[in-house]
């Protein structure tokens, strides 16, 4: 399995890994530090003890809901460690601390007895802590030899990449198994439509295409949706064997999340921090280098720095999404969710269309005659 991933090592070269580190720090820090949907960050501290129902595991060792100061302290720690991770200062420790504090913040929200499945978010910094993503364009890199710091990857591809792929693939598999056992493939039942109706009735999630979809009384369509969901979630695990297949499933996941956002008003934005890992970061790094190379030599250093250009670009897109906007209408869907999920799907669709057009153009082009052809 690792060999097939090694063939694509260029996607995660040291420069690419550095951009991935910066992107992850900004994406999580600006939009996803729990609780990520606005409101009082320490809401859990105000809930009376009647509702304390921690899930089995370390949270059950708690005696009650945490004080607000604990939540605020964890949030500050998470933000500071993400900043350190982003600039590559003590990158390994900062990545580990970021992952642990994000995990703790998530866990505290679940002490009311409802576990959300957002584990991908802390997994990214935790898994990449040992990838060497702090080797370039970082304080660590500048400190020790100006090139060899932060434990550069010893193999052509950091094992963090296939490991994260395997973890995501496995988690998708765990989503499919209960569906198989629960009767999703039974032609007499329409599970997706049932959950859509339930989100509308029990949770008031009735925005965007929820209404028109609920009115779509076409059982074959919904049965197909049930089967497609199970097939998609099952297929993720074997797709780990080849990076191309896995990228295909990640792309499909973006459209899957778009459909759940439009119909069920659920976004699963934390997953996107994991999906972003599988972009072509090496190619992006080359582009950013070219862009920053156009700056005249006399310009300030910051303007000639590729990571500064990259960070500015990411901030230009993400910062407007951090404005304190209320959730859309009566639901709990937020503008960042809509922008990231919708934007990712639009970008992928454009990319796919361009490739398709390129492919068709190549097929139509006459093959030039060669000496062999002409004899």
């Amino acid at each position, binding site marked *: *399995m*690792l060999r097939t991933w090694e063939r694509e090592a260029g996607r995660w070269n040291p420069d690419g890994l550095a951009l991935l580190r910066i992107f992850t720090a900004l994406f999580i820090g600006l939009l996803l530090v729990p*609780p990520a*949907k606005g409101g*009082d960050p320490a*809401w859990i501290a*105000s*809930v*009376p*003890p*009647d*509702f304390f*129902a921690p*899930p*089995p*595991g*370390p*949270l059950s060792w708690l005696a009650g809901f945490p004080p607000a100061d604990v939540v605020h302290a964890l949030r500050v720690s998470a933000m500071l460690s993400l900043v350190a991770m982003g600039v590559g200062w003590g990158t390994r420790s900062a990545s580990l601390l970021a992952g642990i504090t994000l995990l703790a913040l998530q*866990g505290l*929200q*679940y002490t*009311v*007895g*409802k*576990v*959300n*499945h957002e*584990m991908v978010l802390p*997994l990214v910094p935790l898994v990449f802590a040992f990838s060497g993503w702090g080797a370039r364009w970082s304080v660590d890199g500048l400190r020790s030899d100006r090139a060899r710091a932060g434990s550069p990857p010893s193999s052509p591809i950091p*094992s963090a990449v296939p490991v994260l792929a*395997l*973890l995501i693939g*496995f*988690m*998708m598999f*765990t*989503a499919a198994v209960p*569906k198989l*056992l*629960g009767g*999703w493939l*039974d032609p*007499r*039942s329409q*599970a997706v439509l*049932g*959950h859509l*109706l*339930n989100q509308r*009735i*029990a*949770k*008031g*999630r009735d925005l965007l295409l929820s209404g028109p979809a*609920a*009115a*779509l*009384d076409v059982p074959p369509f919904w049965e197909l949706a049930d089967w497609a969901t199970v097939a998609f979630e099952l297929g993720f695990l074997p797709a780990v064997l080849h990076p191309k297949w896995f990228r295909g499933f990640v792309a499909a996941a973006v459209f899957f999340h778009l459909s759940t956002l439009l119909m069920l008003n659920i976004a699963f934005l934390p997953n996107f921090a994991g999906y972003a890992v599988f972009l072509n970061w090496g190619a992006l790094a080359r582009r950013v280098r070219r862009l920053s190379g156009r700056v005249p030599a006399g310009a300030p250093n910051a303007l000639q720095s590729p990571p500064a250009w990259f960070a500015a670009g990411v901030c230009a897109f993400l910062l407007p999404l951090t404005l304190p906007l209320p959730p859309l209408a009566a*639901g*709990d869907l937020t503008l960042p969710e809509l922008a990231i999920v919708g934007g990712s799907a639009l970008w992928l669709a454009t990319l796919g269309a361009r490739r398709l057009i390129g492919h068709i153009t190549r097929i139509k082009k006459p093959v030039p005659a060669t000496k062999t052809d002409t004899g």
Partner: protein
Amino acid sequence: MNRSPRLKTGLLLAALAAQYAWVGVAGALWAEPWPALVFPGFKRVMLTGDRFESTVYRIRVYRAGASASAAPPPLEFSPEEVFIGVPRSQLNGMLRARFRNATSADTLSEAAVNWLAPRVDQLAGRGWLALEIVETPLSLRYEHGRLLPPDPIPGSTPVPTRAVAVALHPDPHRP
């Protein structure tokens, strides 16, 4: 691939399988554990044929009348209206977890009543006497793209709702 990465991959897969087994056991005995490397299963199938089944939570608020026989009908509110500040993604799960083994004799603590009272005051006025959190099984008919009440079965009784937690107003006569 040399032996070491293969071994590591095997160990990782074994660990993932073991933790998934733990999720299954804990889920069957108590509740879904955390942390665990799993995604949501959405196991329950709620629409079979034309029958849609679910469970909803409502907050029922009783008010005083001129006499016991003239008491106005209770007001009903959704959890989102009453539990302000609790993220919607947690709310139904929170009520489900709190009342998993509850009986109708359960009452909310004074702290909980004081937490809920200001919001219920806003919704129902200060003259309310008691509130209960009600778990209602829903059984509806899905037909032509719409949810309709089920056809009544002769001789059947209505689906009972379960008042899972009752709370008295801390002081209905306060200014």
